[in-house]
């Protein structure tokens, strides 16, 4: 080696050594104090609030346990992958997990979460709203106690739409009228190939009186005409002149942004959009300015989207019968690999108590699952749409309860995307076959 190269290598070696030392030092954590430590995993959204709840509950335990709340991966799918991989590898560092509502059946069947003790389950059932409670049960037993929930409402522009529509057909008609008059007219829905599309389909099917899958695995999507009507609605929305061109790749954020940009007259979305449009941003927040006709403009007209932001119940499929919106949310589960299940169940009761759910609702935008909180004035102040939310939750639907839910959902969203190409005649059969295969976990996922 030449001298120059040798000294170059010394520099590199020093740099690597420094990096290693720096990484080690910053990575060194504090040691445990010897008491029971419950490791808890939450998603990124609301991490601060969950951490605050964990701290509060650790204090309230009187020294019996400490809850260490860690955040998992960025997306819910990655979160599930990380938890599931650790569970099949018998990782005992998992005690409490915040589970998406659609994971209950899967985690329960796989033996990854413990069923709740009967008396605790009864207590949870009494104080929780019906819809969210449903999402935590599998084959009659409670496996995951509801922590927060989420449901969609119809948000619309009060200046463009004096009387909000009751059904999808009405809404499409109104949107087309607006389009003909050259005004903002998009109907924002989640039409991308992802879980949100399955949620839309499930909502429409249950609203039309049908269901996709029974709890013992019977494929019911072809029974009656509910699925056909649902598909027709989706196709009509996507192919109407009032459709947003990027509907087939739109997710919740895209829908929200389109409305805030003044391009949309309607959106079906979660209550977080209301908080978002009312958040003061760097330029004042509240969406774009709108001119007297209702079109978006960059001039300061004194009127913004937030000033004409209204809400109503989710549109139904047929008039007279309200929609049964599919709920989302998070439940609390205790892992079977935990070494302190008794303390974990105790901690769960605290993590979902009144103060913590209220904090989650007000600071993190997550509607609570405790029935009594909907009468709380602090909550009602933060959620002006609280009545619509409660009513929606009272008549909620849930997604198919099957351990193979991932398979089923992928089949549905794969087939129904892009919504503009939905053809009920050919697709109903494909859907039935695909779901039948998916439920048995046969067949591939893309």
């Amino acid at each position, binding site marked *: 080696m030449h001298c120059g190269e040798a000294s*170059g290598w010394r520099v*590199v070696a020093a740099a690597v050594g420094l990096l290693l030392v720096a*990484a080690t030092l910053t990575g060194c954590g504090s040691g445990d104090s010897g008491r029971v430590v419950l490791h808890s995993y939450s998603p990124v959204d609301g991490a601060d609030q969950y951490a605050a709840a964990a701290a509060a509950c650790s204090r309230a335990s009187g020294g019996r346990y400490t809850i260490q709340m860690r955040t998992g991966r960025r997306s819910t799918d990655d979160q599930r992958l990380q938890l599931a991989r650790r569970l*099949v590898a018998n990782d005992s560092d998992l005690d409490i997990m915040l589970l998406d509502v659609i994971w209950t059946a899967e985690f329960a069947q796989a033996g990854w979460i413990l069923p709740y003790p009967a008396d605790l389950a009864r207590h949870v059932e009494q104080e929780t709203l019906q819809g969210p409670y449903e999402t935590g049960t599998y084959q009659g037993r409670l496996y995951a106690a509801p922590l927060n929930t989420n449901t969609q409402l119809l948000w619309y522009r009060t200046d463009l739409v004096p009387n909000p529509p009751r059904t999808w057909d009405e809404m499409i008609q109104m949107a087309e009228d607006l389009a003909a008059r050259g005004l903002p007219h998009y109907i924002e829905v989640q039409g991308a190939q992802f879980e949100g599309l399955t949620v839309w389909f499930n909502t429409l099917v249950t609203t039309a009186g049908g269901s996709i899958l029974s709890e013992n695995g019977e494929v019911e999507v072809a029974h009656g005409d509910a699925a056909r009507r649902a598909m027709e609605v989706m196709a009509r929305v996507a192919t109407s002149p009032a459709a947003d061109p990027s509907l087939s790749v739109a997710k919740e954020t895209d829908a929200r942004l389109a409305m805030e940009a003044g391009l949309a007259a309607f959106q079906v979305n979660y209550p977080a959009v209301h908080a978002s449009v009312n958040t003061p941003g760097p330029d004042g927040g509240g969406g774009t300015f709108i001119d007297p006709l209702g079109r978006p403009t960059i001039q300061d007209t004194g009127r913004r989207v937030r000033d004409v932001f209204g809400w109503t119940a989710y549109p139904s499929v047929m008039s007279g019968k309200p929609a049964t919106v599919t709920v989302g949310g998070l439940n609390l589960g205790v892992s079977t690999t935990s070494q302190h299940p008794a303390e974990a169940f105790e901690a769960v009761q605290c993590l979902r108590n009144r103060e913590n759910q209220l904090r989650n609702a007000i600071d993190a935008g997550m509607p609570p699952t405790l029935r009594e909180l909907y009468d709380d004035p602090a909550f009602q102040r933060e959620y002006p749409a609280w009545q619509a939310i409660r009513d929606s939750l009272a008549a909620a639907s849930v997604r198919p309860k099957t351990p193979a839910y991932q398979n089923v959902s992928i089949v549905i969203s794969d087939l129904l995307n892009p919504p503009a190409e939905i053809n009920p005649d050919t697709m109903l059969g494909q859907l039935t076959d695909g779901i039948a295969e998916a439920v048995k976990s046969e067949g591939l996922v893309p």
Partner: protein
Amino acid sequence: MTGTRERKAWWAVADVVILVYALVPVLWIASLSFKPPRAIADGRFVPSEFTWSNYQQVFQLDLFTSALRNSIGIALIATALSVVIGTLAAYAIARLSFPGKKQLVGVTLLVAMFPQMSLISPLFDIERSVGLFDTWAGLVLPYIAFSLPLAVYTLSAFFREIPWELEKAARMDGATPFQAFHNVILPLAAPGVFTTAILVFIFCWNDFLFAASLTATTTSETATVAITNFAGASQFDEPTGSIAAAALLLTIPTTLFVLLSQRRIVAGLTAGAMKG
């Protein structure tokens, strides 16, 4: 051939094109890493505002610092073991004649061409049952197995370059084969061993599929996987600046290695086909 000024100019142009080709993506990542969050969406190649905040953020992330530690540790261990095992086998292949040599070379090449996905399924099941899932050893072992072909290939080419006489002279003097190997050949092969170590390190550092499949927590997650798991303020927020900063940091070691020993690496990678 005489280089006329015109031909030199043309070659200079060609060189500049090559430079642009190689450097633009790296410069882009660097540019993103210095942009403050509000400038990320402006689409400019050269940042209009300059900030170190992304780097500060990245080093405060426990996820990243522990991942860095894992990456360095696992890569160093795997490199050391792979080079040692590879050196032994390469010497045998280059110098000695024994039954099954052709098959061994063939199998080694076969492993080099293995689609890694073919191993993920069984390795995941084996490691989770045996308790190797999410451990350093669980990654080191596949890394050794998959870098051995590269190591053996490169090292045997270097060994072939060393003249036989030295070894024969040592044997004449009464040295055992091992002593001849250790005292005579090894010091001469040192540069080759060094180059092989760099190539193997780059391989381990670069790996994504094994690391993504066989790790789950900060215990053994490598930096390559960690940057794909960076979380912004919410699940809809992609922390572009942090990812870019971390990405650039990860690029530094391997790029340094490569730049400092470019000649040897080129020789090492092309050795087998050139020689023999």
